[in-house]
């Protein structure tokens, strides 16, 4: 099984660290206005090094584009900032590493982290993951559609906290996306399910599913079908219509 995990918002708590910076820069700012993860297309949120025009990204959070840019400028000016993040669910990466070794999964961490002062985002991420118990991670720092990345890497499953990335995976690849949705909004997982995207409330829940998925198949059902079943997704459609009277009243056509 070939898997990819997103980092920020999925396993790494970028939001808390970013919120701290935001409160320092803009006292009284609502923490919910701070992005939970980095955008795969580089910056939309004002991260440095972006060549995406600002107007092509729609700001629907309550932090203005200018504020977001200032925030990211401050973050990227700090040395090895990515190593200061906490793990969202302590112990989840160590468990993931154990499973990867036991089950012989191929796993890659995919991230759109912008560069900060100090080492490369990839090197910082490597050290950070190792410190959390994932000893020898493969990390791919890449911008662009997660769907195209999933197709290029021939992934089976991509785990991500951004619904938009999960949509990209569904559109551009044959991989299955699992959305990690920690919000209490009941409608978002339901919408994801309607679009064939599985939704879990935590990494531990996701790992439970992946673990069960990797058990030997006793029913002759494929991995993707079992995954769809475990995530409560509809199986492939059967006959669309009931059988009706055969003969139209007119015309041979």
């Amino acid at each position: 099984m070939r898997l990819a995990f997103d980092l920020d918002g999925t396993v790494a708590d970028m939001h808390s660290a970013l919120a701290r910076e935001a409160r320092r820069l803009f006292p009284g700012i609502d923490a919910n206005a701070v992005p939970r993860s980095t955008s795969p297309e580089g910056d939309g949120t004002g991260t440095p090094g972006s060549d995406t025009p600002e107007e092509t990204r729609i700001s629907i959070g309550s932090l203005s584009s200018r504020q977001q840019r200032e925030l990211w400028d401050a973050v990227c000016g700090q040395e090895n900032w990515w190593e200061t993040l906490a793990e969202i669910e302590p112990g989840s990466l160590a468990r993931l590493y154990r499973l990867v070794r036991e089950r012989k999964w191929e796993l890659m961490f995919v991230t759109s982290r912008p560069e900060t002062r100090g080492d490369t985002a990839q090197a910082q991420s490597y050290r950070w993951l190792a410190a959390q118990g994932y000893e020898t991670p493969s990390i791919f720092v890449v911008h662009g559609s997660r769907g195209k990345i999933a197709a290029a890497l021939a992934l089976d499953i991509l785990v991500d906290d951004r619904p938009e990335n999960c949509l990209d995976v569904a559109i551009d690849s044959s991989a299955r996306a699992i959305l990690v949705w920690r919000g209490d909004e009941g409608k978002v997982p339901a919408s994801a399910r309607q679009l064939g995207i599985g939704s879990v409330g935590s990494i531990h829940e996701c790992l439970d599913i992946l673990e069960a998925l990797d058990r030997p198949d006793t029913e002759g059902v494929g991995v993707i079908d079992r995954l769809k079943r475990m995530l409560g997704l509809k199986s492939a459609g059967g006959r669309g219509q009931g059988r009706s009277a055969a003969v139209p009243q007119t015309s041979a056509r």
Partner: protein
Amino acid sequence: MMWLDSVLFVTVVLAIVAWAALSAYILRVERQREATAATLAATLASLQTLQAAPVDERLAAIRPILQACTRELLMHAAAERDVPDHAFESLVLLLNERWGIDSLVRDAGAHASSRDKWRRMTALRILARRGHAQTLDLLARATDDTDVDVAATGLALLGRSHDPMAVDALLAALASPRLSPSRVAVYLDQSPQHLGSRLTALLGHAEPVVRQWAATLLARYPDEPVEARLLELTHDADPRVRKAAIQTLGRIGSDDAGDSAIQLLTDPVPYVRAHAVRALGELGRSDQADRVSPLLGDGDWWVRLAARESLEMMGAEVWPVLVRCLDHRDKFVRNGAAEVVQNLGVLDSLIMLEAATDNPAGTKVAMLRRIASAGGVRFTESLVERAGPVVGPRVRRLLDTMGLEHVEAV
């Protein structure tokens, strides 16, 4: 000028007389009609009360009521389809008693005038219902008649028959150049008999029209082992046969049927392509949505419509294929895909997920706008409300960005 006055006077008098005569005639006809209706109502009411009584008692009851009625009136009453069986039996016995059943057989055999034609069709209905021994011969003769009404009556009565020979007559009529095959097929389709094996035998008929209708009608018999034969017919030289075969395979076929439908997606005849594409939808082959979607831009409007219907039949699972089509170079494909996404009811979900994303890309919002513009969607406030307190305001802002009209929740 005296003569002119006289002429005018005579003309006026004649006009008055003509008007009076016509009025009297109309009144008389109306009165007769009312009397006839009253007689029939009284007869049926009397028979209703005596439905459990012996036949002799029923006949004794209606004889005085129908004493003065004509043969046509009695035939008319007996030929009504909604007359209950016990009443029908009594009326036919009375007919037989007064004019003999042979008179009906004579009427049913041929006609010369329009009045005879009515008698013939009515007699055929009565004899068919009664199960008279000569019924099938008379009906077969009727289907051969040059008069279309008589032929249609014959076909309809054969179609209702439980006699296997009636099916023989209908199947023979299918190949008749004088009769509309689709009309004959309608009666075969309505037959109370199981025609599976009979129709299967016709799949190799020399006449394409017979093969076509046999293949079409077999859709009623999903348990009939005909898939292999129908798969062969998808290569038939006649496009009507190919169309019928794939249409039926769409309803009763398996995965092999899907493979044949895929081959027919490039058939040179538009209506064959249309039925092939619809068959894939009916077979639930969402894995073939990528092959169906290009037909959203087919040169023939019917194929384009069938492609939309087929993709809708496949269900919400095909939405990624449709979203990919939104950037297609053909505007029919783009618009058709947007319309299907809307009809699948997944636009709400796409909006919800984009809104739940921090700062969604402008390209995604443009994509949603393209889908929405295909149908002039109006969103109710319920979409915002259902999204909850955090995502709800984001949904509203996204909808505003897309320029969609808001309406109050119903």
